[in-house]
């Protein structure tokens, strides 16, 4: 075990060292907003993230497009918070690096392990390293724009929608029906960008290119996006889907994907599915890394657009495996039967005059 830990330490040190040589998401390198008017411009190409990245020439496909294909995993960022933690108040993302970043990741692992140490069902410590590689995390938080690392304030319209949703839920239990459960519980979708976000397992992705198309396969919950590169118009506003309607094009070495036409149930962070627009950028910044950024623009939900970014790491040891989630989703049925059993218990307790117990 000692030699394994030592090897793990060495690998971690090498990976962290290598990570410093490749691009880190840089605040402001993606689409920015201007004077309160959303200005998510697909024409805004990310600036080179570092001198090292500038010198590196990304490979091309046989038909001449930048080649971003491969098996990817972003499991190293599972413990990376979306927004800048309070401890980094006033700091810039690109300045939190080296030993400071490594220490944060070690602490994140330690915190996670300790948090669940006494829980009867928690995983032992080495799981957090072997499966998720928390200590190999490459950044301290994900939001790169605005520079304070915080998601902008929500609009009054967004708060009204949230209130209406809460009102509609009144009188419902958490599992009165399968429809009360999340799309994730129901094996339907994690939506977008949810399908690419780090998760507790199933962190594998595949990008495949063909002339005129880029295809992304997400292991969890098994979505496949086919992105046409033909600059055609989006489908009519009445046609809305869980993963939205994507259109891509190349801007230099960067693949820019513009996705709209979301269903409200899957719209990211309770955005308005009809007005939400996600601009993703994929740029290969090293032999084993594609920098992925997402600009989230919905004037019905946030006062200005915002962007988060992370490196997707090519990892041939983690190919996408089948995750036909609905195949045997006994969990959903069991959640409903558990809720019915609890209701029965509460009703019996009430009949006996005892206080109802949840």
């Amino acid at each position: 075990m000692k030699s394994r830990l030592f090897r793990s330490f060495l690998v971690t040190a090498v990976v962290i060292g290598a990570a410093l040589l490749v691009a880190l998401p840089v605040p402001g390198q993606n689409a920015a907003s201007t004077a309160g008017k959303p200005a998510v411009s697909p024409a805004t190409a990310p600036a080179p993230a570092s001198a090292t990245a500038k010198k590196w020439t990304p490979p091309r496909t046989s038909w001449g497009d930048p080649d971003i294909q491969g098996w990817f995993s972003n499991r190293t960022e599972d413990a990376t918070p979306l927004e800048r933690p309070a401890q980094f108040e006033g700091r810039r993302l690109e300045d939190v690096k080296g030993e400071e970043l490594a220490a944060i990741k070690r602490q994140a692992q330690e915190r996670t392990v300790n948090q669940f140490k006494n829980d009867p069902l928690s995983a032992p410590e080495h799981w957090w390293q072997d499966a998720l590689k928390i200590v190999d995390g490459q950044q301290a938080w994900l939001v790169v724009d605005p520079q304070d690392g915080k998601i902008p304030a929500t609009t009054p319209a967004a708060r009204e929608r949230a209130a209406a949703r809460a009102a509609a839920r009144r009188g419902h239990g958490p599992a009165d029906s399968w429809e009360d459960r999340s799309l994730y519980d129901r094996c339907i979708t994690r939506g977008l960008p949810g399908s690419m976000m780090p998760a507790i397992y199933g962190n594998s992705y595949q990008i495949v290119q063909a002339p005129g198309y880029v295809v992304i396969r997400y292991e969890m919950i098994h979505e496949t996006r086919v992105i046409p590169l033909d600059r055609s118009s989006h489908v009519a506003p009445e046609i809305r889907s869980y993963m939205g309607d994507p259109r891509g094009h190349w801007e230099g070495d960067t693949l820019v994907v513009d996705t709209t036409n979301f269903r409200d149930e899957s719209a990211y962070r309770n955005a308005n599915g009809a007005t939400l627009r996600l601009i993703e950028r994929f740029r290969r910044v090293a032999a084993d890394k594609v920098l992925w950024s997402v600009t989230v623009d919905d004037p019905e939900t946030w006062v200005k657009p915002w962007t988060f970014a992370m490196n997707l790491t090519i990892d041939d040891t983690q190919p996408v495996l089948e995750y036909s989630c609905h195949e045997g989703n006994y969990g959903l049925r069991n959640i409903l039967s558990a809720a019915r059993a609890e209701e029965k218990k509460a009703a019996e307790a009430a009949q006996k005059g005892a206080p109802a117990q949840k």
Partner: protein
Amino acid sequence: MTLRIAIAMFLATAAAWAHHSFAAEFDANKHVTLRGRVTSVEWINPHVWIHMDVKGPDGTVVNWMVEGGPPNALLRMGWTKNSLPEGLEIVVDGYQAKDGAERANGKDITFPDGKKLFVGSSGPGAPPEK
């Protein structure tokens, strides 16, 4: 990598590989110890289910089903369809379903050689989704 090490690695990691909330399905206060023989293993998504015959104190045999990790996770840790053969005697330490059925979320499996391995699959150790 020997199968035993592979199994140990998986079982030690399975607790947090949850698709659903443990608390919505299982009762942390209903601890169960199940001793019996594997009758079948359903290698299905999103979680594997181990079926086993458990003999009660009065001699009655009841078939229990025990939730394990996702097949992808098992495969990545070296499991194969032969890892829990039919007839293998195991002891499962786990938590029963809230609805009182003979269904449990596994915590540990003890193999015939006494090796105790972790198997819980819906532990609350999962960080929230971003």
